[in-house]
């Protein structure tokens, strides 16, 4: 194990974002289906399908989460936000029936993160969505844990591929614990090693030279 000294700002997870987290900035770039409840003059160019001057009221379009959050107001509605299909009832039933079979990477990859963020827009289904997120996580927990703990010599790439981005982060912390214990067992823990950062730089430099 080599020591790593770069600690990025962690994502907020749940309803609050971390302002400086790169993960959260990427998450909040996910697009949501929205419908405009008023017209947006002089911004027609934002909507690709038209060349009108304004975005008229009642336009259905996709906006990133950050913009939907910024424009959304409970009192004076300028925007209504529709649920992405993975959070709708049909999919929720599939998730709760057997959470392990779903490919959350393809469905997400920010299934939990985006799902928590969607709760900001008062949908009557909010409590069902929150419940589905929690139950899905619990239902998949054993698999996430076991794969991260047993995976040392087996190929788990197929399984890991189907994890949500936060599950992947959990998988990595599980692997860290296991790997550092196993390298201690083999007597490698007290060996000083080159910084992985330095080695990666060298690899990149070599690649630059070759291209």
């Amino acid at each position, binding site marked *: 194990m080599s020591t790593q000294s770069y600690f990025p700002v962690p994502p907020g997870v749940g309803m609050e974002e971390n302002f400086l987290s790169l993960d959260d900035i990427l998450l909040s770039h996910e697009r949501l289906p929205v419908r405009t409840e008023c017209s947006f003059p002089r911004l027609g160019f934002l909507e690709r399908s038209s060349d009108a001057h304004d975005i008229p009221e009642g336009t259905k379009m996709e906006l990133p989460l950050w913009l939907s959050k910024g424009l959304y107001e409970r009192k004076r509605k300028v925007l209504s936000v529709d649920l992405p299909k993975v959070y709708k009832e049909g999919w929720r039933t599939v998730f709760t029936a057997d959470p392990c079979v779903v490919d959350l990477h393809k469905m997400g990859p920010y299934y939990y993160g985006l799902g928590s963020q969607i709760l900001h827009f008062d949908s009557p289904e909010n409590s069902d969505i929150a419940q589905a997120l*929690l139950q899905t996580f619990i239902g998949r927990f054993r698999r996430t844990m076991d794969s991260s703990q047993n995976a040392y010599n087996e190929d788990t790439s197929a399984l890991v591929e189907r994890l949500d981005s936060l599950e992947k982060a959990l998988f990595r912390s599980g692997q860290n614990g296991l790997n550092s214990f196993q390298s201690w067992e083999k007597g490698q823990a007290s060996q000083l090693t080159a910084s992985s950062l330095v080695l990666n730089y060298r690899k990149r430099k070599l690649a630059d030279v070759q291209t």
Partner: protein
Amino acid sequence: MDPSEVEFLAEKELVKIIPNFSLDKIFLIGGDLGPFNPGLSVDVPLWLALNLKQRQKCRILPPDWMDVEKLEEMRALERKEDAFTPVPSLYYMEITKLLLNHASDNIPKADEIRTLVKDIWDTRIAKLRLSADSFINQQEAHAQLDNLTLMEINTTREFLLDSLNFMFKLRSNLQPGSSKGQLTDY
């Protein structure tokens, strides 16, 4: 924590050695050591025992529990009980590894002991995983970690804490209005 740091803590545990040299008592910040007389057993911290052993200045006496019969009993009990059974030393894993790697000639049936301790460890880690799963499943608020050792907790700490944090956030989502102030993140 890195396992090498846990091992460092384990090296403060006392073991008995039989030195083959004489030396008056020495006074260190961590406590007094010695006096050392050839052929007379004396308690020293593990780090010193290993250092003396490597320089062929002593013979290490294995701790009482490092015995095939006793370990077999412990393994049977560990496999039978659902809860974690008491361990002979809070650093049983580290002490076993250090002594077997550096002083195996002083330990009778070293290979058998290595296997037994590894079996006990594996059984306990499997239990730890099982209890983590039921902990998450039943959404418990606290868990009893009696008889777990630092090294055992250490292998799963990061994963378990991250999981619990994550579950806590998902559970807070269930409380409507838990964080419904201004939406300030853009």
